């Protein structure tokens, strides 16, 4: 059957599934809208969290980034999984016990201050908006690449679907669609991976195939290191970044993960404290399936690519090469006019440009898998992008309707009024996200690092100290968050956007990249919070009792 039909079938079926779930799980109360009624099973919540967490970037781009970075790519693998340990041990159970709806809820109540609440709302909004624009863009790109509609139409279709189930069902609709989306995306990611692992190494488990040898009896990783040396790249299994920078980036990504409001809020949806711990465990297990497969795919496709193209005549390239060349993801420029493809580390002699996304997207074709696998991949990428977008959407809408409207501006608003406000806010947020998806601001890529850095330097210390110390007061927490966030913003604006005099790699403080600076800003937040709290009065008894109470299971 034609590829296009397969794709329409896969996308159509998965979308009707999401819509069906949305109709079945309409939200009738604010509790259902914000936290799905608070009775989600821990395994279901684990799946929903995994889908919530794994975005278009995890699904499409990560394996490719690792493929080109080798060891350097480990920062994403460790950074985007290690945060769940922090969540499960330090945050999730206590926030569940606290038992309200949002992250600013906790900050506002624990630090008995609407100023603290507003700072938290501000951070939640910035973090979520930077993220969601990228997701809508991802939806548009997948549509345009696979279904041959233009990006605008693709974004509009995506907006329509998310709007439907997020506005109708709130967290309840989002949770159960995310469960379905996890199943779609993990199946779509694993099928080609298993096929390719079997083709290359004879082992169907990619995690093992990754460390096995190919048909020639040489271990894949050793072969790849050798190929890299020959072509002048740094060795695949050793990095090019400084050790300290790798350390800082990994830490910033881990702590940022644990501080992202759309991830934290998922743990408010389970029934009890022990379920919050359990669902963090399940979530990481479900995430680990994809995250341990991605580096294997990276190695298979990197080896495949080099062996297929390096010093081979352009004429003899397989079909997929031509096809992806027309999309602009592959580019060949025969600089020395010898008809052969020279793929090297030096920009002077290199003749091949490869977009990182191709490593996942072209995989089925490179391995000559049937058309339905490619269709599955399209549905999987859409599931990944839509599920993350929906989770972010909910954070934005609850920050507006609950934290701003109900808690600060109009405390007397009725339950019904708040629910309407939440739906209006969700609609507004979808439209804004769609606008950014269609007209992406040039800084989207740069701001993803900002989202993690901001979450790490604002929420994490405030929540952590709020739970583990009774002495920390509002003065400390507010000044800590403000210092952390400002420092992070300053560094990003200076080195990513050229403000405050700009600067190059040589000017980085202690050689830390803007991606890793969240770690430093977080440390600054901790120091300021502790120092200020020590010099100002302790919080009153009521707050200390609140802390006592959240520590009991």
């Amino acid at each position, binding site marked *: 059957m034609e590829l296009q039909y397969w794709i329409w079938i896969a996308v159509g079926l998965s979308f009707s599934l999401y819509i069906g779930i949305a109709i079945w799980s309409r939200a009738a109360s604010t509790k259902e809208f914000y936290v799905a009624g608070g009775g989600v099973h821990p395994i279901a919540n684990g799946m929903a969290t995994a889908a919530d967490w794994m975005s278009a970037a995890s699904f499409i781009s990560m394996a490719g980034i*690792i493929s080109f970075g080798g*060891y350097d*790519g*480990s920062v994403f*693998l*460790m950074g985007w*999984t*290690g945060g*769940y*340990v*922090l969540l*499960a*041990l*330090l945050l999730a*159970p206590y926030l569940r016990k606290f038992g309200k709806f949002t992250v600013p809820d906790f900050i506002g109540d624990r630090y008995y201050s609407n100023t603290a609440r507003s700072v938290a709302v501000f951070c939640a909004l910035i973090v979520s908006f930077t993220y969601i624009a990228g997701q809508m863009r991802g939806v548009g790109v997948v549509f345009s690449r696979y279904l041959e509609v233009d990006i605008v139409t693709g974004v509009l279709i995506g907006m329509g679907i998310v709007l439907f189930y997020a506005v109708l069902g709130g967290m309840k609709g989002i949770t159960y669609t995310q469960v379905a989306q996890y199943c779609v995306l993990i199946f779509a990611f694993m099928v080609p991976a298993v096929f390719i692992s079997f083709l290359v190494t004879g082992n169907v488990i990619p*995690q093992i195939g*990754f*460390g*096995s*040898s190919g048909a020639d009896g040489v*271990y*894949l*990783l*050793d072969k790849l290191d050798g190929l890299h040396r020959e072509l002048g790249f740094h060795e695949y*299994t*050793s990095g090019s970044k400084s*050790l300290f920078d*790798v*350390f800082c980036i*990994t*830490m910033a990504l*881990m702590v940022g993960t644990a501080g992202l409001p759309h991830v934290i809020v998922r743990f408010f949806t389970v029934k009890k404290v*022990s379920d919050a*711990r*359990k669902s*963090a*465990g399940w979530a*990481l*297990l479900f995430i*680990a399936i994809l*995250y*341990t497969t991605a*580096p294997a795919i990276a190695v298979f496709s990197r080896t495949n690519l080099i062996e297929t193209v390096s010093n081979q005549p352009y004429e003899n390239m397989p079909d997929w090469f031509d096809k992806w060349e027309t999309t602009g993801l592959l580019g060949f420029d025969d600089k020395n006019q010898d008809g052969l493809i020279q793929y090297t580390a030096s920009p002077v002699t290199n003749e091949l440009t490869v977009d990182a996304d191709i490593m996942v997207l072209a995989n089925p074709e490179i391995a000559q898998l049937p058309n339905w696998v490619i269709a599955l991949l399209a549905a999987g990428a859409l599931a990944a992008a839509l599920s993350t977008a929906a989770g972010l959407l909910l954070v934005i809408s609850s920050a507006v309707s609950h934290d701003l409207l109900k808690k600060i501006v109009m405390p007397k608003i009725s339950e019904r009024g708040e629910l309407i406000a939440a739906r209006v806010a969700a609609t507004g947020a979808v439209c804004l996200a769609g606008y950014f998806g269609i007209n992406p601001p040039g800084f989207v890529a740069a701001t993803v690092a900002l989202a993690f850095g901001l979450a790490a330097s604002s929420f994490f210390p405030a929540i952590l100290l709020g739970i583990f110390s009774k002495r920390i007061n509002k003065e400390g927490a507010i000044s800590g968050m403000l210092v952390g966030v400002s420092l992070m913003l300053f560094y990003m604006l200076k080195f990513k956007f050229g403000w405050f005099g700009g600067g190059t790699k040589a000017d980085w403080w202690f050689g830390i990249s803007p991606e890793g600076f969240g770690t430093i800003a977080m440390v600054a937040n901790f120091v300021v919070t502790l120092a200020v709290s020590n010099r100002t009065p302790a919080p009153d008894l009521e707050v200390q009792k609140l802390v*006592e109470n959240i*520590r*009991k*299971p």
Partner: protein
Amino acid sequence: MEKNIYWKKNIKYITILLTLWFIVSFGCGILFVNELNAIQIGGFKLGFWFAQQGAIFGFVAIIFAYIYLMNRLDKTLNN
């Protein structure tokens, strides 16, 4: 069991598990990656394996260990 003991035990578990968390990722995957890379198991250099596979498996095991320990501790609190 008393609340204070419960909380102290919890802190003890957290400290031990976070130490493990640090060792499998920052220790084996970053700080001592070159030393461990001298050891090769199958097709993997050990340090590289920790950075791209082992740390993640370790994280999963750490969380499930915490779930087990805390469920056990919760029971003693109720009795």
